[in-house]
């Protein structure tokens, strides 16, 4: 029966692609797509190749072609799921972006004056170098991102095309400050920050004067009481970049919501992005993808996952404060299992938003409702619906057969971690590995680290394609081989039936460039 359904799905897929239509949820919406379904731009696949890639039977591992290059010789590979959705709902993006100064005088937020570089240029590295030399006013950043879609591919496709533009816009806002590395960011900006920053000789005076006049409050916190300079908080350059990334995620989410009025943007997605700027790697994560750094064979985690379990207390607190969000059908309390009617009046283990441990409470009628968070590990769900608690999109997602919206419980806010890349010497085998949950569900950090390290050790060190081959090897290890009892990996463990996408970014190129 399952095979028959899958057969129908796959055949339907062939029909959809051949017909030239790109919709992934037939009959769902009459609105046009904002971007047609595709695979990552940098793979440069033809429609025929995209059709081939969507084979749920053989599950081909797609890799970056030898004729194409990504910045820093980044490696990439991906594979489609084993049949859970028609399309591959993962998406990826890799770009080098140059942010130009805003044209002077323009007070209205102008379109971002930004050059996007062809990421597939074979000599991309040289271009970056040249630009850095003659365009000291420009701000260049490297960007890698993975998106893992659910309930449709729309949000992931849109985010993969647009998130970096939002990041660039927000970096443009503060680029004058970022381009003066030894200065702490002024607390309050003058109306023409450009001129003041560049002409003032005593920057401390500027900061103080600015903050003294800053009674109206700093941007972003309009209601703060008047600040006095001697209690002023020191804000680092890095936190300005973190703020830019956080606001970019928020804007991306708002844009998806707005665009849904005119376009068909299905589902939601997680987002994991890595940004390299001025010697630092910034890793922003909203969802359950993961990034680790492997340095001299040692694993350094640079992101943490957001799941119903990891975010239980935040979600419970929200539900406690705003019980109407639960629609009188759920309880914010957690119990080890569903409470049965006959247990009312007895004492049972529970925990509230204030607790990480457990205690006993007397069961009442209200506790019979379905728990806000239910299930364990990969099966944990919020409102019995969704297994990931941060990301973009999902504005229309509701609990099945009800009017309860999920979105209030989801956060689009990434956690951003900073890795001071330029402070370390990196060798050719030191890499950052980014993967969607399909990878990490079946392989531990240690297994990934050992696999990548041993694979790279067996490659020609000068082969620029080694990182893509290592990515292909990782996907192979996570997908496994189709046997009689499904996809299997080493030690006869179950392989991942999910979409899997992996970037392997060598870290030595950052220092070579500077």
């Amino acid at each position: 029966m399952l095979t028959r359904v899958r057969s129908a799905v796959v055949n339907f897929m062939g029909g959809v692609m051949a017909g030239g239509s790109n919709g992934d949820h037939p009959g769902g919406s009459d609105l046009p797509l904002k971007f047609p379904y595709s695979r990552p731009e940098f793979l440069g696949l033809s429609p025929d190749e995209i059709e081939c890639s969507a084979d749920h039977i053989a599950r081909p591992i797609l890799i970056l072609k030898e004729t194409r290059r990504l910045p820093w010789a980044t490696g990439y590979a991906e594979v489609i799921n084993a049949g859970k959705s028609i399309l591959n709902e993962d998406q990826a993006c890799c770009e080098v972006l140059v942010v130009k100064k805003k044209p002077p005088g323009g007070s209205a937020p102008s379109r971002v004056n930004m050059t996007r570089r062809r990421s597939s240029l074979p000599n991309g590295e040289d271009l970056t170098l040249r630009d850095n030399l003659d365009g000291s006013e420009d701000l260049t950043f490297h960007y890698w991102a993975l998106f893992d879609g659910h309930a449709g591919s729309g949000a992931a496709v849109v985010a993969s095309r647009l998130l970096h533009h939002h990041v660039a816009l927000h970096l443009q806002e503060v680029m004058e400050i970022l381009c003066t590395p030894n200065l702490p960011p002024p607390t309050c900006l003058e109306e023409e920050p450009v001129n003041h920053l560049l002409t003032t000789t005593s920057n401390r005076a500027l900061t103080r004067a600015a903050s003294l006049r800053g009674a109206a409050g700093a941007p972003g916190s309009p209601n703060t009481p008047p600040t006095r300079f001697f209690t002023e908080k020191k804000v680092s350059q890095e936190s300005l970049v973190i703020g830019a990334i956080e606001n970019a995620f928020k804007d991306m989410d708002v844009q998806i919501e707005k665009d849904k009025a005119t376009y068909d943007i299905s589902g939601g997605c997680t987002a994991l992005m890595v940004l390299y700027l001025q010697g630092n790697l910034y890793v922003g994560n909203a969802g359950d993808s993961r990034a680790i750094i492997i340095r001299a064979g040692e694993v350094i985690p640079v992101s943490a996952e957001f799941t119903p379990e990891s975010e239980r207390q935040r979600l419970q607190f929200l539900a406690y404060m705003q019980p109407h969000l639960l629609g009188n059908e759920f309880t914010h309390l957690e119990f080890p299992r569903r409470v049965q009617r006959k247990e009312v009046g007895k004492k049972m283990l529970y925990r509230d938003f204030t607790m990480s441990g457990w205690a006993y409470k007397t069961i009442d009628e209200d506790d019979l409702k379905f728990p806000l968070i239910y299930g364990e590990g990969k099966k944990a769900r919020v409102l019995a619906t969704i297994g990931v608690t941060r990301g973009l999109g999902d504005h229309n997602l509701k609990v099945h057969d009800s009017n309860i919206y999920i979105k209030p419980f989801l956060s689009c806010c990434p956690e951003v971690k900073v890795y001071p890349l330029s402070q370390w010497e990196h060798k050719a085998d030191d890499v950052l590995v980014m993967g969607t949950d399909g990878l990490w569900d079946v392989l531990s950090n240690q297994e990934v680290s050992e696999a990548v390290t041993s694979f790279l050790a067996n490659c020609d060190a000068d082969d620029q394609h080694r990182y893509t081959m290592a990515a292909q090897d990782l996907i192979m290890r996570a997908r496994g081989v189709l046997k009689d009892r499904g996809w299997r990996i080493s030690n006869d463990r179950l392989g991942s039936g999910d979409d899997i996408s992996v970037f392997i970014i060598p870290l030595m190129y950052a220092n070579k460039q500077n």
Partner: protein
Amino acid sequence: MAYAYLFKYIIIGDTGVGKSCLLLQFTDKRFQPVHDLTIGVEFGARMITIDGKQIKLQIWDTAGQESFRSITRSYYRGAAGALLVYDITRRDTFNHLTTWLEDARQHSNSNMVIMLIGNKSDLESRREVKKEEGEAFAREHGLIFMETSAKTASNVEEAFINTAKEIYEKIQEGVFDINNEANGIKIGPQHPTTNSTLSSSQGGHQAGGGCC
């Protein structure tokens, strides 16, 4: 765009025998003397006509290198046809055919049509494997056989199309279960006007496809 059937092919054989060049010659009608090493799988597609029907060939071109064998092995699944290629100027590529054939037979469906191809027939002066040897190997293992040149395009069309004809005949004989996509055959998107030419089993498929 519309096709009656889609056949999935896989091209296998030692590294450097000209697999990618055969594909390029067939899909783009050009020869590229220096080709990057295929390091996993690459795809090509072309429409052909058999018995007045449009058939789309979806071709998976695999890496020949031993180190990628575990990856490429998983691509046999769901292939209706395989082109097993050796280089007539390199005896070792012919000697390895048995290993390739065992691999293919073990990991594919039993009905897969295998075409044995001795490539680089333009390099007659450097020939190490006689045509008769290729023919004998094919006869012994029940394969179709041709010598081709991806460079001059000699027999390239024929190799791909004859394989398709063989698959098509097997469909007519009812050997293939065309509703099981693991056989490497899909029925094209259906149009009411062409339904009359299709057999009754495809009507069943259409209902199945429509429900999702």
